[in-house]
């Protein structure tokens, strides 16, 4: 097998608050292949958000390395980092759209940052809004959109610069189940169409089993287990995973997925 696209090695993260130290990540090792939809699940406070933020360096790791493609990202200068960040999109639980800009303006902003010309921006925004099926809302402000529409704009904005990786930080946690599914469908769709590597964190097993091919279970800053979604569902080894599966309301569907249908 080729070297993994993303390699997280021995990553730990310590937050210092006055005299106290909080060890949020305690030596994480993960390999993520190109084109994966990789799910990371864990309870609140397990360190999911911190881990995903280390990948686009919104947080810097305290020790360990993260390699993406040929880059060791903690060695990049600030300027290189900003260029590299254009190749990693991120979507958020609370969308974080800019209220002062229209849908067009929101999606255009990362392109402006990348120094694209006005014509290029017009063209790309139209293209990408079409991809997430929200072209008709181009001149709307975020304040006029529903949650699902906002997240679609969020996805469009994250994809504007043709990223290699899309990070999803609880992107469907604030949405109702039906809307969640439609957003997850978009993620699956763009994963196929653009061969985009997606890393998503969630506390919902449903999201993982609906969307991901590989997964890791995070527990107190450590990986409790990792592997293909099907294997882990069939044969959970860690306590956390067992608790998750036990508490999952839709057991029949789990059996169905694990039993036959490919994920």
């Amino acid at each position, binding site marked *: 097998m080729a070297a993994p696209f993303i390699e997280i090695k021995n990553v730990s993260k310590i937050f210092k608050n006055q005299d106290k130290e909080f060890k949020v990540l305690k030596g994480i090792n993960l390999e993520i292949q190109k084109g994966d939809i990789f799910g990371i699940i864990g309870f609140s406070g397990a360190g999911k958000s911190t881990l995903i933020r280390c990948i686009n360096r*919104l947080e810097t790791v305290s020790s360990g390395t993260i390699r993406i493609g040929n880059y060791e990202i903690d060695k990049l200068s600030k300027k290189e980092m900003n260029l590299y960040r254009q190749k990693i999109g*991120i979507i958020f639980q609370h969308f974080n759209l800019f209220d002062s800009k229209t849908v067009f303006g929101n999606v255009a*902003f*990362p392109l402006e940052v990348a120094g694209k010309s006005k014509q290029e921006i017009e063209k790309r925004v139209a293209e990408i809004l079409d991809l997430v099926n929200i072209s008709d809302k181009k001149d709307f*402000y975020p*304040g*006029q959109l529903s949650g699902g529409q906002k997240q679609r704009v969020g996805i469009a*904005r994250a994809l504007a610069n043709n990223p290699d990786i899309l990070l999803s930080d609880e992107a469907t946690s604030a949405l109702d189940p039906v809307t969640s599914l439609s957003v997850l469908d978009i993620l699956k769709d763009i994963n196929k169409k653009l061969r985009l590597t997606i890393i998503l964190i969630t506390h919902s097993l449903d999201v993982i089993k609906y969307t991901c091919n590989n997964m890791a279970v995070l527990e107190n800053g450590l990986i409790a287990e990792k592997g293909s979604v099907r294997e882990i569902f069939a044969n959970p080894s860690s306590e956390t995973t067992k608790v998750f599966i036990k508490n999952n309301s839709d057991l029949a569907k789990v059996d169905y997925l694990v039993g036959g249908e490919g994920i």
Partner: protein
Amino acid sequence: MKEFLAQVFSVEVWEYVLPATWQTIYMTAISTTITITFGLLFGVLLYVTDKDGLHPMAIFNKVFGAIINSVLSLPSMIVVIIFLPLSKFIVGVSYGPKAFIVSLAIVCIPIFSRLVENSILEVSKGKVEAAKAMGAPNWDIILKIMLPESLPTLIRNFVVLTITLVSITAIAGSFGAGGLGELAVRFGYNRYRTDILVAVIIVLLAGVEVLQLFGAFISKKILKKRHLV
């Protein structure tokens, strides 16, 4: 009572009040312009260099914050007096409204700086994070995201600033700056001309009310445009 009101609105009274009103507007307008320029700059600087800011510079932030706070903590009247020589030197005039402009601005710059800082801080951290994650340089984050996002609050704070400035021009009035403050002291207080004092109060009340309404109107209009109300 009727006679008194007639006196308040008499030509004689307004021959004093109108020129003074212009002086007050003149002082307020120019000081406001100076204050906005530096207040925006300093407010952004305070925000950016904070330990949780876009470009933390802890020592600079502490020292700069301390300077701002020390001017803030002094009574406006004292700040006006302290900086009067500097003001006169910069403007080159030693009496009248012009001489006080810089002094007035110095009183207000720290106030507005903090107001600007607070307005920017109100923008949710998630938006900053989103912009950062796109690889936006700090400059873009401030000019294209933070300031536009906080515009409705900034405008309301701008009105607060202007109203504060009007009241400080009145203090300056008692040191020879002219304007409505001086009129109130010279006639209303020293010569018991209650009619002039009442006219001054009417102008101030009306002026502040108009400013307030105007600010609220613009701010609301922006919020409506963005569908946030």
